[in-house]
C-alpha cells in the first residue's frame, strides 16, 4: 500500500502528454500585439491560434479563463536554481572548464516554485566568484522530467564572466583563514579590478593561441593530411567557442568603469558580450552598451547591498531601454524568481514604460537576450505554448498563477496542487510517526555494544 501510494504520487507529478487545448474567454497579453480578449488554441505543443474568435478543434480540452489573464511564460535571464554541488568553481580565476549542464538537479523544489510563479524558462548561471566562470545552460521548468529533458533544446549555451568585488574577492584579497579552525585560504589572483581585466585578457591570449593550433590542424586535415590533433583543453575550448560566436557571454557587472572595460576587451579580442548582468550603473553608459549590442539584465529596485551597488536607481531598466538596449529584469534568487511579474510592474512605476514593454522585460526581452525569441517570449502563433494563466491583472501583487503550460502541457495547476496537499501531508505524518515509534523502541535497549551505526 505504501509503495502504491508512493507510485501514485509520482504519477500525479508527471505531466500529461501534450494535448490540444483551448484557453477560452481570457484577457491575453500577447506582448507583441497588445492585449486581446478571446482564446488561445494550443496544438502539438505550439500556439496554433490567438484571437477573439478561433476555430476550436474537436475534442480539445477546454480551459475556461473567464475573467483571467494569459501571458507568455516568464523567462528569467539570471538564476542559480537546479544546480547540484555548488554554483561556484571558485578555486581558480578562470573556471571555463566546468559546466552547469553536468550538474542540473531536476528535483530541486525551486524549479516547481518558480513554475508556480509563472517562470517557464531560466538561464542557469555559474556563480560570480571568478573573472571567467563556468559554462551556463538554458532550462525549461519541465518539472518531473530528467536533467536532459529540462534543457531548452537548441538554445545557445553561455558562459559566465564576473567583474568587480566578487572576482577580486573583496574582503579577502590577501587570503587568510575563513572562520575558526578553517584551513588557510591562499590568496588567489586577482585582488584588484585591474587584475580582473588582466585575467580575462590573459585567458583570451591563451585561447587565441589554442584556437590557432586547432585552426592549423583543421586546415591540414582539409588538405588530406593526417596530423596528430592538438590536446583538447576544456578550459580553452569554451573560450574558443566564445571567439567563434558559438557561446554567449553573460557578464556580471555593476559599475560603469568596469562595464566599459569589458566592452573594450571584447572589442579587442573580437567577441561580443551577449548580456551584461545586474549592470546597475548601466544607465550611465547605456549608449555604449547599445553600440556594442549587449543586452542589459538588471534588477528592478534591488540596490545598496554592497559598495559597488550604491549608485543603483530603479529607473535603470527604463533608461537603458530608452537608449536602445534590450533590457530584461532578472531574479538571481530563488524567491524573487517567483514574482518576476511584479518586478516588471515596478518598471511601469519607475520610468513609466508601457504595460507591454514592462511585460516584455520578463518575457520577450530575455528571450531575445538568450537567442530564443523565435521559440518563446510572446503569445504568437507558431511559438511554443509556454503560457501562464493568472487570476488577476498579472503586473499586480494580487495576481496568482492558476496554471502554467510548457510546450502545451500543464506543468502547474493551482487547484491540483492544493487538492493533493492533504494526501502528501498524511503520508509525511505517517512516516514521521513511524520513525518516532522506531526510535522509541530502540531507546530502552541501550547501546548495542557501543559501536553501532
Amino acid at each position: 500500500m505504501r509503495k502504491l501510494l508512493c507510485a501514485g504520487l509520482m504519477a500525479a507529478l508527471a505531466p500529461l502528454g501534450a494535448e490540444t487545448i483551448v484557453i477560452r474567454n481570457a484577457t491575453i497579453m500577447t506582448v507583441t500585439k497588445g492585449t486581446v480578449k478571446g482564446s488561445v488554441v494550443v496544438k502539438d505543443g505550439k500556439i496554433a491560434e490567438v484571437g477573439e474568435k478561433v476555430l476550436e478543434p474537436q475534442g480539445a480540452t477546454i480551459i475556461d479563463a473567464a475573467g483571467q489573464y494569459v501571458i507568455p511564460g516568464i523567462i528569467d535571464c539570471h538564476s542559480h536554481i537546479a544546480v547540484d554541488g555548488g554554483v561556484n568553481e571558485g578555486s581558480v580565476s578562470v573556471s571555463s572548464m566546468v559546466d552547469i549542464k553536468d550538474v542540473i538537479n531536476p528535483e530541486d523544489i525551486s524549479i516547481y516554485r518558480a513554475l508556480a510563479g509563472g517562470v517557464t524558462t531560466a538561464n542557469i548561471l555559474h556563480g560570480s566568484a571568478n573573472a571567467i566562470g563556468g559554462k551556463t545552460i538554458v532550462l525549461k521548468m519541465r518539472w518531473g522530467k530528467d536533467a536532459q529533458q529540462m534543457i531548452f533544446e537548441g538554445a545557445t549555451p553561455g558562459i559566465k564572466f564576473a567583474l568587480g568585488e566578487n572576482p577580486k574577492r573583496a574582503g579577502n584579497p590577501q587570503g587568510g583563514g575563513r572562520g575558526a579552525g578553517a584551513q588557510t585560504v591562499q590568496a588567489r589572483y586577482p585582488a584588484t579590478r585591474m587584475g580582473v581585466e588582466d585575467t580575462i585578457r590573459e585567458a583570451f591570449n591563451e585561447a587565441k593561441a589554442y584556437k590557432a593550433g586547432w585552426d592549423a590542424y583543421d586546415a591540414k586535415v582539409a588538405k588530406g593530411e593526417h596530423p596528430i590533433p592538438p590536446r583538447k583543453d576544456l578550459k580553452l575550448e569554451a573560450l574558443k567557442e566564445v571567439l567563434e560566436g558559438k557561446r554567449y557571454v553573460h557578464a556580471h557587472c555593476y559599475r560603469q568603469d568596469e562595464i566599459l572595460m569589458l566592452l573594450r576587451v571584447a572589442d579587442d579580442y573580437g567577441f561580443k558580450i551577449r548580456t551584461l548582468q545586474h549592470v546597475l550603473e548601466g544607465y550611465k553608459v547605456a549608449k555604449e552598451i547599445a553600440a556594442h549590442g549587449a543586452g542589459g539584465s538588471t534588477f528592478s529596485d534591488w540596490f545598496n547591498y554592497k559598495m559597488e551597488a550604491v549608485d543603483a536607481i530603479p529607473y535603470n531598466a527604463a533608461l537603458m531601454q530608452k537608449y536602445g538596449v534590450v533590457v530584461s529584469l532578472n531574479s538571481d534568487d530563488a524567491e524573487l524568481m517567483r514574482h518576476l511579474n511584479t518586478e516588471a510592474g515596478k518598471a511601469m512605476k519607475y520610468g513609466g514604460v508601457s504595460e507591454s514593454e514592462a511585460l516584455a522585460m520578463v518575457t520577450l526581452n530575455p528571450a531575445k537576450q538568450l537567442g530564443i525569441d523565435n521559440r518563446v517570449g510572446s503569445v504568437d502563433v507558431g511559438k511554443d505554448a509556454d503560457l501562464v494563466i493568472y487570476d488577476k491583472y498579472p503586473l499586480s501583487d494580487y495576481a496568482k498563477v492558476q496554471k502554467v503550460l510548457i510546450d502545451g502541457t500543464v506543468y502547474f495547476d493551482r487547484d491540483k496542487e492544493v487538492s493533493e496537499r492533504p494526501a502528501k501531508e498524511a503520508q509525511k505524518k505517517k512516516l514521521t510517526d513511524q520513525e518516532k515509534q522506531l526510535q522509541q523502541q530502540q531507546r530502552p535497549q541501550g547501546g548495542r555494544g557501543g559501536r553501532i551505526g
Partner: protein
Amino acid sequence: MKKLVTALLLFGAFAWAESPQAVAIRNAKIVTVSGPPMAKGTVVLRDGLIEAVGENVPVPADAWVVEGEGMTVYPGLIDAMSTVGIPSLAPAPSTGAVSGRGGRGAPTTAAPTATTAAPTPRSMGPEDRPQTASWVLAADEIQPTDPRIATVRSAGFSTTVTFPERGIFGGQGSIVDLSGAEKTGEMVVVPAVGQYIALARGGFGGGMGGGFPGALMGYIAYVRQIYLDADHYKLVKEAYAKDPRGMARPQYDRALEGVLDSRRILLPANRVVEMDRMLRFAAELKQPVILYGMREGYRPEAAAVLKKYNSPVLVSLKWSEPPRDADPEQEESLRTLENIDLGPSTPGLLKKAGVPFALYADGLDQARDLQRAVKRAIDAGLSREDALRALTLAPAQIYNVADRMGSIEKGKIANLLVTKGELFDDNTRIQMIFVDGKQFKPADEAPAGGRGMTTDNPGVNQ
C-alpha cells in the same frame, strides 16, 4: 554433539597452525548458490580449492573431517567494495587488541602510506592532477596485519574487493582473499578490477580556497579532462612508438597511465538524479561502469534509469537512518523519510527489475550489524537466496571472477562459510570460515577500532 565440540576445539587449536592439505565437511546442508541446495552433502577442499562437492562424495583418506551435522555451508561472502587490508584507510587507529588469527606472518615492511596523501600544493587546474592516484593498485598496499581483516572475516567475508580510496581517482581495486597469508601476493585474487572515482573531498565542495576542484561540476570537469588527456596521450605515444625520429618525446604521465590501465570505473550515485548523471557520464567517457551507493534505488524511476544502461550497481548495506542527535523540532523532508522507510526495499526491487546488483557492507563489519542490515532487505522483499547471491555469486559475476569464486563448485577457490542456523538470522552463529582452504574461527569479540569505511556517505555530491 560431544564429538562435534571436540572437533571444533581441535580445529580452533590448529587454526593458526599449519592447515591440513585436505578438509572434508560431511553431512552438512550445502548451499552452493550456483545450483540447488543439498540437504546433506560433503565438500572436500584440497590445496586451497574445492576438490569435490555432492551428496555422495567420498571422504578422502588423508582429509581432516568436519562433522557438519546441523551446520550449513555457504560460499564465503564477498564484500564488493571495501578498504579492508589497507590499514591507513581505516579512520580509527587500531587499538592493538587484535586476535592473532590470520595474522601469522610477521608484519611486512611499512606500506608506502604517504604515496597518495592529499597533495599539499594548491591545485590550480586539471593539469595539476589533484587528488589523483590512478596508478595505485590496492594489491600493492594490502597488509596482512590489518586488524580489520579478522573483523570482517568474523562477519563471514572470505573476500573483499578492496579499493585504495584516496581522492578523486583513488586508484584501482583488487580482489583480495582474507587468508592472512605471509606474503601479500598470496592474498590477491585479481590485482586490478577497476578505478575508484569519488566526486567529493570528504564533504561538500566549498570551492573558495581548497584548490581545484571545489564544486561538483569541477570534479566532473576534471574527470572529463583526464579522459580527454588519456586519449590524446595514447595517440601521441603510439605515434612516437611507431616512429620516434623527429618527434618530440611524449611526457610520461602516471596519472594517465593509471587511467588507461583501468578496465572499468566505479562512480558514486545515491540519488536517482545522480544515477542518471553518472550513467550518462560513463557513456560519454566510453567506460564500463559500476555505480555504488544506491540510497534511492527503491524509487520507481531508479530501476527505469538503471535498466536503460544495464550497468551493474553496488548497493550499500548502510541504510538511511534518521540523523543522530537531530533537533527534535527539525522536520525531515518527505524524501528523507521515504529513504529511511523504503531504502532496504532497494535490493528486492532491483532484483524484480532485472538490474544486476551486489551488496556491500560499507563499513558494517561486525557480524551482527551486517546480518541485521541484510535481514532488513529480506524483510523488505528480497528473497534469502537473492540476498546470499548478492554477497557471493553476484559480485563475482560483476567483477568477472565467477569462474573461480562466488559459489560452491568443483574447481573453485575454497572459500566457505559454515554456520549454525540460517545465514542472516539473528541467532545464527558463524562456526568457521575457510579462505583459500584455510580454516578460521570467528573472533569472539571482534577487535574495536576495526570499523570504518571511507565511503561513509558515498557519492556526497549534492
